[in-house]
């Protein structure tokens, strides 16, 4: 217990700190409602104009969109702003003075940062898309409940795994930031991968059939596609479990790789100025 106490405290403090930023959460929520409607309308238009059989129904696609809006803050496309700032100013020096494994120190912070940003936003988005949208007379465009109790439980597990996975990906961007001394490069490289391969722009089932095995097993699928398809019952039983297992496996790979990279980067660290 004594060994992990520091990391738990770091998580707890950052989490509490991030929850303070209410204006940012409200602004994010507003933007996400707006974009959610646009995406929903695009899907509605698409389904109306297509007679071919689609891999997901309109209702499922709409649910997929709203979930994406609710959990947008969990997408790992930027560096942790605290880390980027510390790298720029050289305050990283202080983090190296702590008797902690720097990788897990930052990992705990990244997890808290993501979870605390996602929590109020997804609560508001669920309230909006489940309750307010039908009240506005757009019942067909609402966020539906999980397809079954089993789906709901698996979805909860998938979201927990997603926080772990997403934080490991943020750590990759953080490391890019340490090596290049700026968060821009790594962020620019990460964004297209995250947006396309996670299924955030177009759900992965809509991609060509021959790509499906690859898409299912690449690391970004765990950010959007796997959890959301579990939610509406698109992935069930052993396939859902396989999805969870691939998320955890990628998390372990990314953490181990990141941990090694961190040691190498820190050995080359230079902190100039006083």
């Amino acid at each position, binding site marked *: 217990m004594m060994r992990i*106490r520091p990391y738990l405290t770091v998580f707890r*403090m950052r989490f509490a700190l991030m929850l303070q930023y209410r204006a940012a959460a409200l602004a994010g929520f507003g933007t996400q409602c707006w974009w959610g409607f646009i995406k929903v309308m695009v899907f509605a238009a698409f389904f109306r104009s297509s007679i071919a059989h689609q891999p997901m129904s309109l209702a499922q696609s709409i649910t997929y969109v709203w979930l994406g809006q609710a959990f947008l803050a969990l997408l790992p496309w930027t560096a942790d702003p605290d880390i980027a700032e510390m790298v720029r100013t050289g*305050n990283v*020096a202080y983090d190296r003075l702590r*008797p*902690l494994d720097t990788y897990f120190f930052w990992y705990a912070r990244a997890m808290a940062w993501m979870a605390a940003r996602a929590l109020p936003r997804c609560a508001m988005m669920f309230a909006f898309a489940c309750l307010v949208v039908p009240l506005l007379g757009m019942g067909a465009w609402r966020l539906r409940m999980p397809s079954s109790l089993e789906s709901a439980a698996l979805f909860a597990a998938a979201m927990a795994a997603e926080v772990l996975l997403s934080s490991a990906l943020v750590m990759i961007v953080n490391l890019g930031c340490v090596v290049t001394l700026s968060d821009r490069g790594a962020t620019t490289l990460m964004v297209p991968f995250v947006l396309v391969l996670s299924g955030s722009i177009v759900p992965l089932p809509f991609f060509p059939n021959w790509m499906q095995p690859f898409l299912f097993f690449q690391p970004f699928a765990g950010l959007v596609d796997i959890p959301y398809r579990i939610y509406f019952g698109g992935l069930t039983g052993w396939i859902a479990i396989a999805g969870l297992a691939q998320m955890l496996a990628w998390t372990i790979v990314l953490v181990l790789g990141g941990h090694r990279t961190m040691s190498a980067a820190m050995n080359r*660290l230079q902190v100039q100025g*006083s």
Partner: protein
Amino acid sequence: MPQILVQELSKSYLVSEREAGTWGAAKGLLRRRRRVIEALKGISFSLERGELLGFIGPNGAGKSTTIKILSGILRPSSGRCEIRGLVPWRDRIRHVAGIGVVFGQRSQLWWDLPVIEGFELLRDIYRVEDADYRKSLDAMVSLMRLERILDQPVRQLSLGQRMRCEIAAAMLHRPAILFLDEPTIGLDAPSKLAVREFVASLNRDAGVTVILTTHDMHDIEALAQRVIVIGNGVILADTSFERLRAEVLTERRLFIDFAGEAPALEIPNVRVRGREGNSIELAFDPRQVPAPELIGRLTAKYDLLDFHLEQPRIEEVIAHFYNLHGATEA
């Protein structure tokens, strides 16, 4: 075995540079020019438990680099360093658990957290037992007068308040060794005094070994029994402050007010540094011209209203020392 042992420590950096202007930038696209900067060129010293060492030198001399190597943040290019039997950069986690470090130009407390929560974070990070934490906290709060600012977020503190909190934060886990890198920079006089008093008492009462870098020579004069002067990455002197002064600038200054116009003075080994109306300033070496003799000769010959004798200010001593060694920054 001394508590801190440093032998032939060297550190070089690679810096990229390019010529000024658009053409220089374009050339830089094709070929980067790199230059090796030797921040430390083989420094050696050792420190016993409970010593208080002042580390001075002009900007860019290598003071901060040394502190960063000693605290395990940087790896040296070559050389040996052992602190309490540990190699700082190799045994980093064990090493840093036993030292406290303050960088005067940086903040270790989280900006948006109230001071007390920042302290609690450090308590958990350093795995300090609750009872020990209570004791250190109470001691720090009364010594550094923190009662009234504990609940304020760090961003709302004045520089002096913040620095007092920073130093307290560095001591919560009761380290045996404290590194202070410019802890008094930018502080007003009362805050400087508080910091000095605190450092002195930690060293005297708790036996904490302290290495202090500063540009404020009064810090050195007030605190350090021993001074290392560093310039261009080498140690220029390792001595007591009084010895340093005696070796560098023994000069005295005599300020005299005459009853009438200040006369033209021609005394061997005495230099006229300045004159203004009835006043004159003389500089002399007391080993060549003893002060009583000089004053005796002047009072015998002229009508003096007033005089006083001064030593050169400490800043002047140090600037003179840096110049002697060509140690000012490029």
